[in-house]
């Protein structure tokens, strides 16, 4: 390769005179992310310096304050017009501050706040040696079943590290859908993934299963990250830039200045197509689309349930945000190439999720497959490639994340001697024993099934409408069929809860603290409000549905 064919990053770096300008950072526009990162670091310090007894409260305080403050910052930015008229690129082109970014960041922060409440719940398990315990292992480093574990339990240790870990994951998630160059995207991907891998391994009960889940998630996640990175490298090789806007220009052939190096590579479609495919593959892994869904059931089942709920809701929001931006900002010029592929992915995702879920006997695995089929529905909206496609996906994500987090919060309540009773047979007759809990869970299931007057219906209608308008009517038909199949297993759980006789040795429903009650209450409220009066939120998503380029 001739010297001219080497891209500019190398040549600028080799420039003897260092003319590196001090980066200009718009701190105000990046405030949500900065607050969370700062709070996460404070959380680490709290872990190091605050006495064990008060650590839980200190961590709770830091995390809640940070999430609320960050959400306030998002609202302030949106109110200031950064979602619409003032939308722009910040941090030297690394971060986009626009409607979709702010909408998704707001959703992620609220989801995280609700998720945090379920993380902090300490009333569900019976007290161990006079100490209240949460869902997380006493000491992550102790081998399951070992003496050191027993000692840790006896001493009343708790893994309060989950709070800073949660905040780091949230920081990654905030950047992920806002990233405006590929390197930032990758960094965000890692920042959000690594804490999740860790948290998956931290279950207090069934620790081996939890660690197994974490290892599976980590290995497959590392694979996916490698794919993403490879794709990024190829796209860089193709376009000579990491920036979304520049890559888009190169793809469209509208780049203003063609350097000799660029001229060499930009005709090379193989680089572009393989690079784009690998990049998108990595993102599809994160959203749990078929055929990259294999990790989902195992990880959802093994991870501590509060983590599952948070992960299922927030990760999906962040990953779909990033996918939308890649497809709509970077690769719109490649639309005719990726649309058929995404069609196929959406169809198999909807169908496989719905069909395989029928055979599940564990409530967490069932919800995992349900999450897969929902990813397919959202993809139908992504494929629309219209403004209404963007806003419908935004709305769906907001609606879906609160249903998910509420549903998993209910799962934490149903317990027997071995911890959570997640086997479906144990849920028989729950409606007789605790009508309220069963009714709430039924509301969530009906929302998943997309029954009218729940948020699930409004979301489903929005994405299907967008897909139909975008010329994807067959996708709507497949979606409708998948919904009918999916309805079967949601209904099966309702039948089990209400029409089956309770088992004599069945599980009990723990009475949670106000924390989990708040989480579930918020879930129900959002589900009903978005179902009955979605107009305001649809408008919000509609206004937010324009990407800055």
């Amino acid at each position: 390769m001739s010297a001219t064919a080497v891209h500019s990053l190398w040549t600028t770096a080799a420039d003897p005179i260092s003319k590196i300008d001090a980066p200009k950072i718009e701190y105000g526009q990046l405030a949500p992310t900065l607050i969370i990162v700062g709070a996460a670091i404070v959380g680490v310090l709290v872990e190091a310096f605050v006495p064990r007894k008060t650590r839980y409260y200190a961590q709770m305080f830091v995390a809640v304050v940070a999430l609320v403050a960050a959400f306030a910052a998002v609202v302030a930015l949106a109110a200031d017009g950064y979602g619409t008229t003032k939308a722009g690129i910040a941090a030297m082109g690394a971060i986009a501050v626009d409607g979709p970014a702010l909408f998704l960041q707001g959703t992620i922060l609220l989801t995280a706040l609700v998720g945090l409440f379920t993380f902090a719940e300490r009333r569900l398990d019976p007290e161990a040696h006079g100490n209240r315990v949460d869902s997380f292992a006493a000491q992550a480093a102790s081998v399951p079943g070992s003496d050191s574990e027993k000692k840790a339990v006896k001493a009343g240790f708790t893994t309060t590290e989950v709070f800073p870990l949660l905040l780091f994951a949230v920081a990654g998630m905030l950047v992920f859908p806002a990233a405006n160059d590929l390197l930032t995207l990758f960094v965000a991907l890692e920042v959000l993934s690594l804490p999740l891998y860790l948290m998956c391994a931290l279950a207090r009960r069934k620790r081996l299963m939890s660690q197994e889940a974490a290892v599976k998630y980590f290995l497959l996640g590392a694979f996916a990250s490698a794919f993403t990175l490879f794709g990024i490298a190829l796209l860089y090789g193709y376009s000579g830039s990491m920036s979304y806007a520049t890559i888009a220009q190169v793809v469209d052939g509208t780049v203003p200045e063609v350097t000799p190096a660029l001229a060499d590579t930009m005709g090379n479609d193989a680089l572009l197509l393989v690079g784009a495919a690998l990049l998108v593959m990595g993102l599809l892994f994160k959203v749990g689309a078929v055929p990259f869904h294999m990790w989902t059931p195992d990880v959802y089942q093994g991870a501590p349930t509060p983590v599952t709920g948070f992960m299922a809701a927030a990760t999906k929001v962040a990953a779909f945000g990033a996918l939308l931006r890649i497809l709509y900002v970077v690769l719109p010029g490649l639309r005719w190439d990726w649309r058929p592929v995404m069609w196929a992915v959406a169809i198999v995702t909807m169908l496989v999720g719905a069909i395989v879920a029928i055979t599940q006997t564990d409530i967490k695995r069932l919800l995992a497959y349900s999450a897969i089929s929902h990813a397919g529905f959202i993809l139908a909206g992504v494929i629309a490639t219209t403004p209404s496609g963007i806003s419908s996906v935004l709305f769906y994500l907001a609606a879906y994340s609160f249903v998910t987090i509420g549903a998993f919060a209910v799962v934490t309540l149903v317990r027997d001697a071995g911890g959570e009773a997640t086997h479906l047979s144990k849920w028989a007759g729950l409606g007789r024993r605790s009508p309220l809990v069963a009714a709430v869970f039924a509301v969530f299931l009906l929302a998943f099934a997309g029954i009218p007057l729940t948020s699930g219906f409004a979301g489903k209608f929005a994405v299907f409408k967008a897909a139909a308008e975008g010329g994807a009517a067959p996708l709507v038909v497949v979606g409708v069929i998948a919904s009918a199949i999916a309805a079967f297993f949601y209904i099966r759980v309702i039948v089990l809860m209400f029409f089956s006789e309770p088992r004599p040795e069945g599980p009990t429903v723990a009475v949670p603290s106000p924390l989990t009650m708040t989480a579930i209450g918020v879930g129900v409220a959002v589900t009903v409000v978005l179902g009955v009066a979605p107009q305001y939120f649809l408008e919000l998503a509609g206004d937010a549905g324009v990407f800055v380029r």
Partner: protein
Amino acid sequence: MSFPLLTATAALPAIGAIATAAVPAAKRTAAKWLALLFSLATLVLAVVVLVRFDPDGDRYQLTESHAWIADFGVRYELGVDGIAVALIALTALLIPFIVLAGWHDADPLETGSKRWRPTQGFFALILAVEAMVILSFEATDVFLFYIFFEAMLIPLYFLIGGFGDRAHEHGEETAATQRSYAAVKFLLYNLAGGLVMLAAVIGLYVVAGNFSLTEIAEARANGSLDMATNTERWLFLGFFFAFAVKAPLWPLHTWLPNAMQESTAPVAVLITAVVDKVGTFAMLRFCLGLFPEASKWATPAILVLAVISIIYGALLAVGQRDIKRLIAYASISHFGFIIMGIFAMTSQGQSGATLYMVNHGISTAVLMLIAGFLISRRGSRLIADFGGVQKVAPVLAGTFLIGGLATLSLPGLAPFVSEFLVLVGTFTRYPVIGIIATFGIVLAALYTLVLYQRTMTGPVKPEVSAMPDLRAREIAVVAPLVVLLVFLGVYPKPVTDVVNPAVKHTMSDVEKKDPRPEVEAAK
């Protein structure tokens, strides 16, 4: 702004449902009275609607229109035509009787958890269904209609699966299994139908850009909205499929016998007499109103299916051993008549079909509720377990006979008029179909009279010898309905006056004129 009468008519039972559900567990009887009170108040409002409605006025009256979900092009639009008014009146009329008939159906056997309140739930769910049914009769926005059309499945599902006959030949455990099977079957059939309709609803939005019945009809009339022939046909099929499941039309009917057999008699009445009417009503309002060309295109096929329903339902009714299942198959046969009347595309046929919806509601209610009283006395649903009941319980037997005779369309009772109109309306355009359908009446006589003969006449079986006759509450349920059957049989004018102008509008939607009588044409 005038008083939102239609909203109030639907909101009242909804409020009643919430109030009933909120009654504490110990105050079971109070919940029942509360439910009855709300259902009667709803009846009063329905009567007000009936009085305020001017049959010769605008097509849709008492209209309300508010913005709702602008992003989906959805408005909260209500309005009633004569057909809707008649059906709202039927619904509001039947619910108090259903509540009264089911007075003891949901008393808990064992106390269970302190918060377990089946009785409150039972009556709250009935009122919730009433609210949603009334709203779906009132909605003139397709999306609004769809929402309640789908949402009403959920309370019904709990009514079917959660409450069944006390007595069951195979014990409570089997009964519970069969109940939940019936409930799931009901839900999956109807949900599948509804989801197919959802695809068509979305398609309609893509084509028309809004969901307002009046706006779409207007746009089609003045040519600003032009549907391609194929699009219209697909959309029609999507809508029709959902309504045919609900109605139900052969071969999509198989959920109905299970659902009616397993649920308590009042709930069975709620399903056939009230909820299923939404399906046939929607065929008139939405299939013919939105897709006239496609409706004409599909007419031959639908008429054939309707005739199959008539004959098949009647034949299967003849062969049933279970009283409730027999009534269910008889209903399938009657729904065949209604659908045939609708798609005969004559004004007699459609007037007859609408009248049939009302009459079938009343006659089935009489037959089914008395059957329910009978079954709860004997503890069995099997026809063979009865015999000679008329000797021990003459009032029960007598009213049962009237209900049966109404079902076989005896002249002088209400269903005769409607069946006659449907057959005349069909015959003028499709003589062969009309002739075949007539055999349905013969079979109806067979299954009704055989049912009566086997259960009520003959030697008194020892198990029924101590059977008490109808109690005061039961007579209060049956007597008004029987009076109504006779009254509408002799003097159907009040209903036809309300219905006929609306039918004319529907006929003009599909641009059909009645065929001229042969004699006149020959001149």
